[in-house]
């Protein structure tokens, strides 16, 4: 037991020394601090946005509309984590840590380590954790600084911010597991880095495709609902017109064989029914594709959704609505009247599902209904398989 403690401490110390020797570690750390400093320089007042002593008057974006706390949380959750930590800092971290496993298994280095009384599984995992430590320290410093900025400038001590550390660490660990496996197999830093970046890009594309399929599906479903409402209204109107004509014995167009009498009275009803059939066909297609993308995503790491967990935790739907990112009535079914009252929605439909704010809100809702165990559990499942494979290879390989 004592030996295990001594070895573990030595491996941890070694991990720190290795990180400390990497210039990029410190460069990234300094850049993170600069980003937080710039973050702190922004502020909100009654007129609008401020940067140091400069003012940018924005009638729709000032402290009368948003609290400073909401503003800072919004910036942290939508820029700090998804842009800085998830993209810029992660790329820097991958560049810095991609060489850890190839260097570890390089000829001349590995023999000495393997000749010590320590298991291969522990050795490999310790090196894997070294890579994670890189990101863990970076995120901890960044989050800590943001926590202070939001606390001091926004007057709210948002403890939920610290959730960024495990979430970004999780996100990075999905990618780093691939990096470690490829680094072990090829012993090449470049190969490990390239394959990891390619996989990351593939996960991103799959996630975007999933979003697109859901958006189209929801848009089609909304169209079905919309046309249903319109059909119901037109049927009622046509029935009323037919009844009136019969009652007053006034002439009305008689349907030919095989034609619907109501459609003959109101030709727009036929058009609406045609639209509904088209919408139903479209719905069927997008349902199928969204089912496929969901299944594919289930077995792959969900990088975007993992990071999205933080946004879900920090910003509620109400806050998103308040920030203008969601329409308050976006979940309602549109009628002819509302469509007429809200010409923007007609515009949305013309622009397709990407511009449909009701579908966008439904997408947001669906993403928020995907449970944490599904998002994290299945992603970790992927990671466990990749790391397990690496451990099997490492344990059985002759060096």
């Amino acid at each position, binding site marked *: 037991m004592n030996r295990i403690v001594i070895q573990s401490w*030595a491996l941890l110390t070694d991990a720190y*020394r290795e990180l400390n020797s990497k210039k990029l570690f410190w460069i990234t750390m300094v850049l993170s601090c600069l980003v937080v400093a710039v973050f702190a320089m922004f502020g909100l007042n009654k007129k609008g946005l401020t940067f140091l002593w400069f003012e940018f008057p924005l009638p729709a974006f000032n402290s009368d509309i948003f609290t400073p706390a909401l503003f800072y949380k919004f910036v942290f959750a939508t820029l700090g984590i998804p842009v800085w930590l998830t993209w810029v800092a992660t790329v820097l971290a991958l560049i810095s840590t991609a060489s850890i496993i190839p260097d570890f298994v390089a000829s001349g280095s590995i*023999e000495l380590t393997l000749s010590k*009384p320590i298991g291969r599984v522990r050795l490999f995992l310790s090196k894997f954790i070294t890579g994670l430590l890189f990101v863990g320290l970076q995120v901890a410093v960044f989050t800590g600084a943001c926590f202070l900025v939001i606390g001091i400038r926004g007057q709210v001590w948002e403890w939920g911010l610290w959730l960024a550390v495990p979430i970004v660490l999780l996100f990075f660990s999905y990618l780093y597991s691939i990096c470690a496996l490829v680094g072990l197999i090829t012993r090449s830093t470049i190969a490990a880095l390239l394959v990891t970046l390619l996989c990351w890009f593939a996960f991103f594309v799959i996630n975007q495709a999933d979003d697109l399929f859901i958006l189209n599906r929801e848009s089609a479903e909304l169209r079905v609902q919309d046309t249903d409402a319109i059909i119901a209204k037109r049927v009622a109107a046509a029935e009323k017109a037919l009844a009136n004509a019969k009652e007053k014995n006034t002439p009305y167009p008689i349907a030919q064989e095989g034609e619907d009498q109501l459609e003959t009275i109101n030709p727009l009803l036929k058009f609406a029914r045609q639209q509904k059939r088209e919408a139903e066909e479209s719905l069927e297609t997008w349902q199928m594709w969204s089912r496929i993308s969901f299944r594919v995503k289930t077995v792959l790491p969900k990088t975007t959704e993992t990071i999205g967990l933080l946004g879900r935790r920090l910003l509620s739907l109400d806050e998103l609505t308040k920030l203008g990112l969601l329409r308050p009535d976006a979940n309602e079914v549109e009628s002819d009247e509302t469509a007429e009252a809200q010409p923007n929605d007609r515009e949305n439909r013309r622009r397709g599902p990407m511009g449909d704010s009701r579908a966008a809100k439904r997408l947001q809702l669906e993403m928020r209904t995907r449970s944490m165990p599904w998002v994290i559990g299945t992603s970790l499942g992927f990671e466990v398989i990749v790391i397990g494979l690496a451990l099997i290879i490492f344990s059985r390989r*002759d*060096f």
Partner: protein
Amino acid sequence: MSMSIAETGFGVFAAPAGGAAAGEWAVDLTDVTKVYRGGVHALRGIEMKVRRGEIFGLLGPNGAGKSTLVKILMTVIAATRAQGTVLGQPVGNKDTLSKVGYLPEHHRFPEYLTGGQVLDFYGAMCGVDRATRRQRAGTLLDLVGMTAWERKRVKGYSKGMRQRIGIAQSLMNDPSLVVLDEPTDGVDPVGRRDIRNMMTTLKERGITVFLNSHLLSELEAVSDRVAILVKGKVVSQGTIDELTAGRQYYEIEIDAPDAQSQQPTFLKALPMGSTLEQSGHESSVAESPPNSADQPSSIQVTSRNLGGGDGNGGRQLAPDASGLLPSGEKILLRGGTLQILTSDHHPIQAVIDGLRQRGVAIRSVRPVRPTLEDLFMEAVVDPTTGKAFTPGAAENEGAGR
């Protein structure tokens, strides 16, 4: 590097456990086989014994399987079949490694570590506590002459300095067995001598040293026992005396400006009843000796080539003539030198007497023992072709990497 262990306080290391419980053998292999992927047979049933407290030299040509064997002992490579023990525990047992020191060939330490940190890290990996590590690191750095470089990063070290640090780290866990793979690689002559002295001191303290080196003279100078590995098999094993037994001979050199011309004198000087066959002639011609009682009973000139396999490691040219003394010892004649293949000095006396009676001036009479290099060359030369085996595996079987 000053390797005077007594002076540098190397005595901090306790003598390893001995006695019956520890067993006689530090390494006792009965059957170690390694077949790499693709069917390359690197080791084919290695049988090897290394006594506790001795310096054991492992030698063999490139690709003989030496590194594979060492790596199997150190668990860097998994054997296909491994029957045997290291320090009394089965080969591959990880716990045993806490009492084994290892210096790999072409080792590479993490370049972000200083010399002192290297010792500390690898000591900790063996489970040595912090206080002991500090104490030993100081002692060992002093021992290998690297105290002044303790706080300098390894990436600034020369090859020889890295080797010194490597040797020091192999001793950090107070090992009972030290496996050194080419320890003098890149080390200057003074450093080499110091390393040899250090190995001797380790032995004196009861530590077993398993030495893998290409430098045969170095091995010969320090090894108690050696094993020669060829194509994945141990072809010979034992002390140098054991390996050279029956291969020692006496050499009588005469003082003559043209030794070749003295050959007839040699022939006449041999005791009665000796036979001698001359080599290099086109045909066999039997020569009748002159009417003299002290002439060899028969002298034959043959076309046989007696080169190679002459008991001298195959490194000498074919003899001019060969034959037998009446007492049965083989004799070889090369120019002005007569070689009598025996370690017994008695049969030599009659030959010396005969030469002196013929008025031949003797420059030297000396017993000759084959060197380790002779043994090695003999082992690695293919007797059918007379050429050294090609490095690595035989075409269809393979012998390692």
